[in-house]
């Protein structure tokens, strides 16, 4: 299933998931689906957040 993960992260970020994270429309538990035991989804969301933070940092340093 590594290949499925490779495929997933090769795709551009899903806008719907990204927006829901940026808008913090729900609780973080629910947004990150921590309780549903979907570690891949959690990882995917964390990566989106990391990318966002890195972009901000890069902007700040400019």
């Amino acid at each position, binding site marked *: 299933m590594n290949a499925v993960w*490779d495929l*997933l992260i090769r795709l551009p970020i899903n806008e719907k998931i990204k927006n829901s994270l940026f808008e913090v429309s729900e609780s973080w538990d629910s947004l990150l689906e921590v309780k549903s*035991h979907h570690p891949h989804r959690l990882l995917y969301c964390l990566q989106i957040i990391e990318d966002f933070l890195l972009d901000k940092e890069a902007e700040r340093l400019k």
Partner: protein
Amino acid sequence: MMLLLFNITNIHQYLNKDLQNKLIPAIKTAIQRRLTFISDKEIKDLDREILVKFLFRAQNLLIHYFPQEEIYLMTETAELDLSLKFLTCPYFEKRLRGINEIKELTEKIEFHEDFAKEPQQYSSIYSQKMTKKLNAKMFIEWINKNKIFDLILGDSIHIEIIKRTHEIIKFIAKFEKLPLNLLDLLWNSCAGKHEAITIGIYNLIVEIADILDTQGINYLKQKINSIPDEEQNDITLNLVKGFAQKTLPSSSIKALKEGSYEVDESKFHCVDTLWRLMLDESKLSPTLSENALNGLIETLKERSCQDLKKVYLRASLEKIRKNESVSQCINLVHSLLSTTFHTHRYDIENSLGGVLEQLDTEFDIVELLITEFEHFHRRMQEIFSKSKSDPTEEEKEKVYFGKYSYTINFHNRLAFLEYILTNPSYELSFSLKQLDRLWELLALNAIWESDRDYFFNWISKNHESSSYEDFSSVIEKEMIPQFFEKILCNHKKLDFINMSPKAFECFQTYFRTINEIKGNFKTVKGSKFLIYDLAYEGKESLWSIFLNCKNQNTISKVVNVLVSCCLRLGQNLEKEKKKICEEFTYKCMNLLKEGYQKQNDRLISKSVLLLMSFFDAFEGKIRPEATEGGEKRRYNINMTATIVLKPDNNIKHVSINSTQSIGYLRSLISESFGFATNEFKLYCKGSLIESDEDDSALYNFPFGGPYIIFKVQPPKNDSGDFHPKLIMTQNTEYIDLLFKLLSEDVQGKIFSLKIK
């Protein structure tokens, strides 16, 4: 004595007559005695130059007092007798000198004889090179009287002396018939002797074979044929071959009747011996039989065998019909047809086309070869049906059929069939039924897996050109549609499930060819193809192979073809590229969904592989398995390409591997300059690189650049920003499906994920 002779020569004219009359005959007798009674020890120390000088002086002196002819005869005979003394001397060096002198004398006598026949043709300078009195008859008498050959070929026989005997025997044959007892002596002289002596004698026999009369030839032929098979070796075979070639008639021996294969074979000697020795029924080892076969081929290539070789072609095909000595007969026919007939048809009788036509009329060559192949295959299967386990690859070399290993038998048959079927001089082709029989034999019931792959490779070979337009294979163009439909697209004939990469390559070759023929594909630069009609032949089978095949290497190849069939679009389909890519993506996602629903891991893996390859190809990245192995390894270099944007002269550098494609370079340029891929034109060394080159690897272009780009206005309605990845990412259902697939496999595997 030399001193005495020197002094007398200087003063003899001043002597009175009486003294001269007493002294000169005494000197003559003394000279004769001196030469007659010369001892072995003296011979050993004797300098040839001094001896020649001595004879010359004696001749000059005596010639004033005796008839010229008498003196010449005396000195020349003395020379001959001296050479005999040398030859019989116990010292080898002197014996060698003896034979050399005899040989030199034969040359001089030959000049003498030629001069006697036509004196006007020879100027005075030849007088030094010829004997004055000694003639051929006298010489031969001397040879016989002194039993020179008994001496040469007797107990003290030596190879260096034999080597110098050729000319003497040839000389005798030129002026007199060679006596049979000399031939007998020659033949018997190698009995029980060292190999080098035997070779020397056999070479001598071959050397003189062309000057023998019929009786001599027949006598030696009978001797040669009496060598038992068990005693044949490379040396005897060289004798047979050499004798056969040297005794060939000087002009071509025609067939007895026009168009007939009958030739007066009595005019040829030992050619039939070579034929007999190459056959399975001879007791020769395979190597020696091969040697005999090569000797036969070499002999039949001679001009005088023009009609005889047709006799052997026919005899070989007759043997093949009887399933006897097939491998060697195939080699003989193949070699004769491919090297000894001309391809033009001016001389129809002797043209390749004409001969093939004659043979085909009589033997139905293709049918004959397939029927024989079936027989061979059946026999091999019988051998292996007795063993409990499947035969291993090593056994292939150990199993013999006739005189040759299984592998040689197998390859010879296919090589000859290939030659026959692709020969442009005369059209011979498979019927569908014959093709099916061969397929049944070699694809469905191959004894070894490697044979099956060899056959797939054989049947897909394109013989003349890398372009599919000039496709020339063992299957004629008209037969290809039927072959493709009835055999290659038929899963009962081609095992889609266990398909090997070679089997798929075979499918792929004909898939491209049939679609070229039907105008669905066109081959462009670099033997790539472009698709002009999406309803191409074999589409269903291609997908069926993809879905059913279990061989991972084959699947990679199928994936490449499927992706190419989606992305390599001809100009007429370029506008529909977005739609085609969308449909392809949907198809892949549907397969992924089906895999998830049916819990079919294989289908999931295949679908993901297909999507990844599709994205790679779309982005211009060449996946390693998609490039040709050898080339890829040779040019696998990481490099930095310099890109210059004109006219601004803005320079950027991109890192790329030489095996990656121009399309990928284009995408890197696009990223680093911030243009869409259709917003610039790419030039290399002043030449525009068209987008149809995008699949080509970078090593096909000069390394390092600099590549020049010019910004251009993108064409309207161009789907430059489109990427099939967007279809997936914008569709939440697809993203959810990917998460579902991942969650199925989640326990304990999360930490093994490589997060990129």
